């Protein structure tokens, strides 16, 4: 009997835990499973405010339920005339002062974290040799895709942000067309990309994205920006510093790709039709009309959200408006199936990690 009860207890505990965990969402995009310092600060603030607010709800509901039970006319009789109380200064003072105290308890950490998270003074710090001490990424949001430039490293990529772990990564955010908003839910709060000014903030990534379901964190556009706002996703790869340095070296080496003569049909076709908008070298200028494809083969998605298969890639190329309404890439219907296969194969081969 006792044993059964214990088992039942254990079971209910497990059930509660499961519900709780399910309530936390998925690791790669849930704010409730923070994977970095900024997100954790915000999560702690969430816990603090939720606790206080649940207390308020509890008090209100208690008084509410008691009065509902005690003071029903069906109990007191139709003719009962209650005393017409004007009010009570003591009570009113109590429920003015206690909320003020509660608000203060929340206000102090809010103000503290506002300043802490808004502090980008170390962004431009340089060491004795004039090299930047911190990694800075310039983010440009464009109609339904994201460009990431590493100005101090001289490389550009798109759609998939690659960052080192356990250090502050600073971001310069701007939009090229209409306003967007840069959000990596699991790592930290969002900041808008305005059209007229650069916004700056930092994030810290503390979890290796390798351990995640798709091997990436999910990034979102959080500001309505047109028909395909919902599809303006990007992905984030985090890795230890040493791995990141290797990645940077490999990226810097892609500059040679431009010099090579075409070796495949796919590359030739790409050079004829696509290179005007899409670079395949990570070295160079930002501000291209289309996403940089230097690391296309390493990426997790086609067009930011479609499965990373040759099939979906071909679908995308031939009918861009169907998959991302309102985006600026024209549909390429002139290719034969064979040519499409060649382009897809070429793109899938663009890699710095393999």
């Amino acid at each position: 009997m006792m044993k059964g009860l214990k088992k039942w207890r254990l079971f209910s505990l497990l059930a509660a835990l499961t519900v709780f965990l399910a309530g936390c969402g998925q690791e790669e995009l849930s704010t409730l499973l923070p994977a970095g310092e900024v997100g954790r600060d915000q999560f702690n603030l969430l816990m603090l405010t939720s606790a206080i607010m649940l207390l308020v709800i509890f008090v209100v509901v208690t008084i509410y339920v008691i009065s509902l039970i005690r003071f029903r006319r069906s109990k007191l009789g139709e003719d009962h005339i209650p005393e017409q109380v004007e009010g009570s200064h003591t009570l009113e003072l109590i429920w003015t002062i206690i909320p003020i105290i509660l608000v203060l308890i929340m206000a102090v950490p809010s103000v503290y974290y506002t300043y802490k998270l808004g502090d980008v003074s170390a962004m431009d710090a340089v060491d004795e040799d004039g090299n930047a001490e911190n990694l800075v990424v310039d983010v440009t949001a464009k109609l339904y895709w994201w460009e990431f430039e590493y100005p101090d490293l001289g490389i550009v990529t798109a759609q998939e942000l690659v960052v080192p772990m356990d250090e502050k990564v600073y971001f310069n955010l701007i939009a090229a067309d209409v306003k967007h908003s840069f959000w990596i839910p699991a790592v930290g709060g969002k900041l808008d990309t305005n059209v007229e000014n650069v916004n700056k903030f930092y994030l810290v990534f503390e979890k290796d994205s390798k351990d995640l379901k798709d091997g990436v964190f999910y990034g979102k556009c959080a500001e309505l920006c047109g028909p395909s706002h919902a599809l303006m996703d990007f992905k984030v790869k985090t890795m230890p510093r040493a791995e990141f340095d290797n990645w940077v070296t490999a990226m810097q080496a892609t500059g040679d790709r431009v010099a090579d003569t075409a070796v495949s049909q796919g590359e030739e076709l790409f050079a004829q039709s696509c290179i005007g908008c899409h670079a395949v070298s990570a070295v160079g200028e930002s501000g291209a009309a289309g996403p940089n494809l230097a690391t296309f083969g390493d990426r997790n998605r086609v067009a930011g959200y479609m499965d990373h298969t040759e099939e979906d890639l071909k679908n995308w190329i031939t009918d861009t408006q169907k998959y991302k309404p309102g985006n600026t890439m024209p549909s390429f219907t002139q290719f034969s199936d064979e040519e499409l296969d060649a382009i897809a194969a070429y793109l899938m081969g663009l890699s710095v990690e393999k």
Partner: protein
Amino acid sequence: MSSVAQKRGFGATVYDWMTSVDHKKVGIMYLLGGLFFFILGGIEAMLIRLQLLTPNNDLVSAGLFNELITMHGTTMIFLAAMPILFGFMNYIMPLQIGARDVAFPFLNSLGLWMFIFGGIFLNLSWFFGHVPDSGWTSYTSLAIASEGHGMDFYAIGLQIAGGGTLIAGINFLVTIINMRAPGMTYMRMPMFTWTTFVASALILFAFPPFTIGLFMLTFDRMFGANFFDHTMGGNTIIWEHIFWIMGHPEVYILILPAFGIFSEIFSVFARKRLFGYSAMVFATVLIGFLGFMVWAHHMFTVGLGPTANAIFAVATMAIAVPTGVKIFNWLLTIWGGSIKVTTPMLYALGFIPSFVMGGVTGVMQGAAPLDYQLHDSYFIVAHFHYVIVGGVVLAIFAALHYWWPKMFGTMLSEKLGKVTFFFFFIGFHLTFLIQHWLGFWGMPRRVWTYMDGQGWNAANYISTIGALMMAVGFTVLVINIIITTAKNVRVTNDPWEDGRTLEWAVPSPPPFYNFTQTPLVRGLDTVWIEKMEGNKSGFTPSEPVVDIHMPNGSIIPFFMSLGLFIAGFGAMYRAETTWGLTVLILGLLLSFIAMSLRSVKDDLGYYVKKEEVLRDLKSKGGSN
């Protein structure tokens, strides 16, 4: 115009309503207009939820979805919630202060017709195939980039409707300042009148900036200005500030009258004086004041800098204090009372937990660093629906049931009312509670679809089921209204039997001059005081029966608004057609001529003769 019902043709009846300046008729027209747009906005909401029922759904296209969310938000706020509340303010507030009409009956009618024509203008966009698609906030980089005439419909439609709102606000302010009956001091005014007063003051200060913002948008889109084009030196953040300087007080413009409605209902159905009346008044005024200090909390992620964010964060949290005072005062009103759970009371009781939940999530978002996560996620969708549906819409439904007998002389079915509440209330929580978690799980708002595999499927499914339940609830309400109107069982002055304020001392519905004699007000809840002292009618007159001065009806407001409506189309098509400019000028000319006519033609009103008033009094059996 006579109070004796005459057999009239349909055309004459329509003309009578079109030209009416009677605050009761104007109020009913506001109500009908608002309910019509409420249904439109509701259909849009259902389509939104059905699209989000499953991942990768393609019930509506991406472009259409953006049009739906834009029109849903704009319609519900400006064309449904506000006009419906205006309907109640118009009908009830003058009765509560013992006035025979509002201060400016002509302007009252003008405000109504501007709202109607503005609303029609905005919704005609569906027929032109160019629908606003940049969200109800219409942030300008997107609104300027938006192709077609969609955003033009938004800018001009809201400009016309917004003008009507401003006129109504000024009118209510002057009515309350100047037209209170003898003895009705400010601190004896019913809570609904007080909240009308404060909400009107908010309108006065919130809508002029929006007028300018909409003009800027109009000029940018149609007349070559560069306010928001950053390549020409413009700045889109100006729009965000202007929009939220209007947009935040707007929320209080909606919720304060809702507070007023619930204050009345709690006190009537608990048979107890509102607890801490003066604190309630003070809290209302304070909320109104603070409402103007917090607009930038909608812009925490815009990059205003930590100092601005910190200031606005603290100011936002501060609003929790007066709001908390209100909640506890309501609780203490029912504490020790004699609670009768009628349909209006049921809504009021449902309101408390719902609104508290919406309020506390508001405070959470006030913590700026936390808001970086919550902003523009589904959490915020959940939050503002909790305050607007859980606060304003519940108040509207409560007021419909509560004042229906006063307005139409017959009671809505209590049984069906409770069925409505049951479906709507459960559906509401089902729809929006889970959306808090969708926000936590990383779902941005305003997404037309979502991919599978992000853990959002079940929650979205539940949410849509809830939305359908709300639709069922509303349908029952409509059925209730139809059945009630068909049955038409007449009621007396005070059908709830516990009425405390002056509207319950006049017949249901009241005669067009409201009061045969202006009442004398002897305290807060004056009708209750009279009844407790044995005066069954609840009414003490302050004057003998005399001739009553009433305003004349007029068709001019209709034509003034029509002129603006026509001019709007001219402005929109000015650049691309040859007739655009002509139509613009003709429309403005029509408005101008109508206005000049009003200015030049004397309108002194007329008198209802004493004998006629006495005859009415007699036919009602002598009681007032």
